[in-house]
């Protein structure tokens, strides 16, 4: 249980650090990195609560949810970067 609690705390801290950075920075890339760190924090919480000791098999459902979340996060990052690149071009013209 102590392991789950420790890693949950780490995940929540990552979420809050990312949120702070998201609110404090204006550049797109900074905000995207911040969102990805926030996402990693939430994923860490999910995986931590799936952990059931060194002997017990972990709960596979949160693992599957996190896999889904990772793919969703990379999709969103890629779309945001493409829009950002397009905006740069529009601003240069």
């Amino acid at each position: 249980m102590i392991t789950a609690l420790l890693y949950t705390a780490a995940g929540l801290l990552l979420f809050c650090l990312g949120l702070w950075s998201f609110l404090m920075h204006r550049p797109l890339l900074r905000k995207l990195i911040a969102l990805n760190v926030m996402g990693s924090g939430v994923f860490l919480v999910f995986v931590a609560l799936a952990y059931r000791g060194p002997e017990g098999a972990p709960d596979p459902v949160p693992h599957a949810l996190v896999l889904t979340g990772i793919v969703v996060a990379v999709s969103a990052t890629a779309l945001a970067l493409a829009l950002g690149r397009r905006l740069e071009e529009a601003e240069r013209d």
Partner: protein
Amino acid sequence: MTGAALRAFVTIAIALAAGVLWWVFSLALLEGPGERLAPLAAEALPRSGVGNPVTAVLLNFRAYDTLLELAVLLAAVLGIWASGPPDRGFAPAEIVLAGLVDWLVPLLILAAGYLLWVGGQAPGGAFQAGAMLAAAGVVLRLAGTPRAGLPRGDWQRVLVVAGVAAFLAVGLALMAIGHGFLTYPPGHAKWLILTIETAATLAIGATLAAAYVGGSPPDGPPGEDRA
């Protein structure tokens, strides 16, 4: 409120939120059910057609989530294609690097095949395998192949939709013969899942590589896509 005061306010608010969050999450963990869905998933695993519990969740128990997730990936790449043509890419690699690429790319493709096959029983599966294919694409583009090894326009479009298409084809066919949407009949789950996973691997690889290229595929008459 001045900028500095606002920053201080946000910082304090987030620090307080962190404390509250940690408190309630430890409450939930300490008083929560402990077991959650693990025993249910373990009990249903033999009937799922695969041996890896995570693959069982992704492609059987919660397959509908995975279907929507592939649709998310598709939406992202469609949005990227709509944002105009890609950058020119990188200059062709020098001899040493080109030699490296020549064995790295086949290796990544082999790794993809292995991960796809092993995913039924051990860690691995369509997403990891697809990511390996995409990595091969990234390496190719970095080495100076602008299209990252992807086929021309029309075939690229077919590849990108293959994952969702396989899911829908299997799901709707099962519904038509009376099993319910994405309800695999007993004994057939294994090969149906492998079919979907193979299509999904190709689609994920192509989609992520296309997302890295970052622009519309070069097809159709010139000038049809916005510059």
